[in-house]
């Protein structure tokens, strides 16, 4: 694939993903939340009883779709590669803090773009924080940061994450009474598209993200490291696509898909400082992990068990965030959440330092 074709593919994929994200909102997902990996993992953690926040419990088929879409395409292209062993526990801990940062902001980097495309200007603070966090991570990358090498693993190790996703889907369809669900009208967890629609959208986006290596954090990282704009173009295309579709739906339906401003935005708060710091933590942690939460799901689908462990860390982080009152709400951040984000920045900084300046790196 030559460079021009690759760039065109990236832009087309971004526009398609933007369309699917807005379509999922049309079909029932919360506003500006066609996709949000952090929110969806949080909802799934709630459905499995890992936390008891009644407003955010639903087993999101989009998550299974993303992993399986990536897995199926990787299988077809002979790119499934079971591997792992690169500091799994460190990745688990980083995943916890990335989730705490995302739930301070109320969204992952993917939703940050969708919030901007819906006119939510609070996300500008999140974007600023995310860029600062990524640049901080790049600082450490250039000075020797490494979680050490991965190793080839037996095939079953790489297949386990896709198998788990199939089992979760089976649970959702065949035994939903075992899961916890937010009642309709009871909060964001109660708003969702039909299972088949969500799953199909997840499968398509998972396959597109596997093919293009789309990564919200990787785009800014590659721009800083190589002056390479390809991944960032995917980012921009999702924004442009979702913005145009939101404006069209505003005009056609009369509903508010795009509303420019700070106050009254869906599933968002107006505290700029903590929106900034939350995404700084998320961006910093994601660079150390090698990709945003979406990318971690896609890599897990390809058989990367380090990414699978990161996804489990993200889910554990969501459970902690809701069990200990760390997650923000539309009313704003909590005191516990502010302390957790500051501790998270310190902890992620310590992980970065230890894995950058240790003696065997010299």
């Amino acid at each position, binding site marked *: *694939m030559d460079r021009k074709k*690759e760039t065109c593919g990236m832009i087309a994929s971004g526009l398609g993903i933007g369309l699917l994200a807005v379509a999922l909102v049309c079909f029932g997902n919360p506003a500006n939340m066609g996709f949000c990996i952090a929110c969806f993992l949080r909802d799934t953690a709630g459905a499995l009883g890992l936390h008891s926040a009644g407003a955010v419990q639903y087993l999101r088929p989009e998550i299974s779709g993303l992993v399986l879409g990536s897995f199926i395409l*990787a299988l077809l*292209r002979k*790119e499934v*590669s079971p*591997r792992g062993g*690169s500091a799994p526990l460190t990745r688990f801990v980083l995943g916890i803090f990335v989730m705490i940062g995302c739930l301070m902001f109320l969204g992952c980097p993917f939703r940050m773009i969708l919030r901007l495309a819906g006119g939510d200007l609070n996300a500008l603070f999140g974007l600023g924080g995310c860029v600062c966090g990524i640049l901080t991570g790049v600082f450490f*990358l*250039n*000075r*020797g*940061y*490494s*979680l*050490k*090498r*991965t*190793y*080839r693993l037996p095939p079953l190790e790489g297949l386990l994450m896709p198998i788990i996703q199939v089992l979760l889907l089976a649970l959702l369809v065949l035994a939903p009474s075992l899961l916890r669900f937010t009642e309709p009208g009871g909060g964001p967890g109660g708003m969702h598209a039909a299972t088949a629609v969500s799953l199909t959208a997840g499968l398509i986006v998972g396959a597109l993200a*596997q093919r*293009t*290596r789309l*990564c919200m954090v*990787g785009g800014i990282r*590659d721009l800083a*490291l*190589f002056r*390479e704009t*390809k*991944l960032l173009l995917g980012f921009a295309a999702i924004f442009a696509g979702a913005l145009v579709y939101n404006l069209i739906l505003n005009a056609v339906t009369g509903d508010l898909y795009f509303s420019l401003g700070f106050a009254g935005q869906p599933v968002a708060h107006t505290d700029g400082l903590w929106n900034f710091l939350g995404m700084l933590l998320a961006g910093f942690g994601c660079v150390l992990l*090698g*990709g945003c939460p979406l*990318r971690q799901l896609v890599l897990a689908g*390809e058989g990367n068990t380090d990414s699978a462990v990161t996804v489990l860390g993200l889910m554990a982080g969501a459970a902690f965030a809701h069990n200990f009152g760390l997650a923000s709400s539309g009313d704003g951040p909590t005191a516990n959440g502010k302390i957790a984000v500051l501790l998270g920045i310190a902890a992620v900084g310590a992980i970065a330092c230890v894995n950058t300046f240790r003696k065997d*790196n010299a």
Partner: protein
Amino acid sequence: MIYIATFFSHFGAIRFQKLCQGRDWEAVLMPVPRNLSSSCGTCVRYRSQSPCPGDTWPREVEQVVQETPEGYRRCYRAENS
């Protein structure tokens, strides 16, 4: 001949680039080409007569391929990678 080396870490690529440049080989850092790998790490594309810039491969090197008109030809792959 033109080679592409991929690495287990970004810093491994930086060190390898310096190693190449120390031998006056033209070497640039870039994202790993998509048609070489689905991973999104850093690679070094370099021009030299032989693929290895030393007696042994640095431990950060994951694989090295040579660019040929027919595609990539593998020159080295780290054990268990």
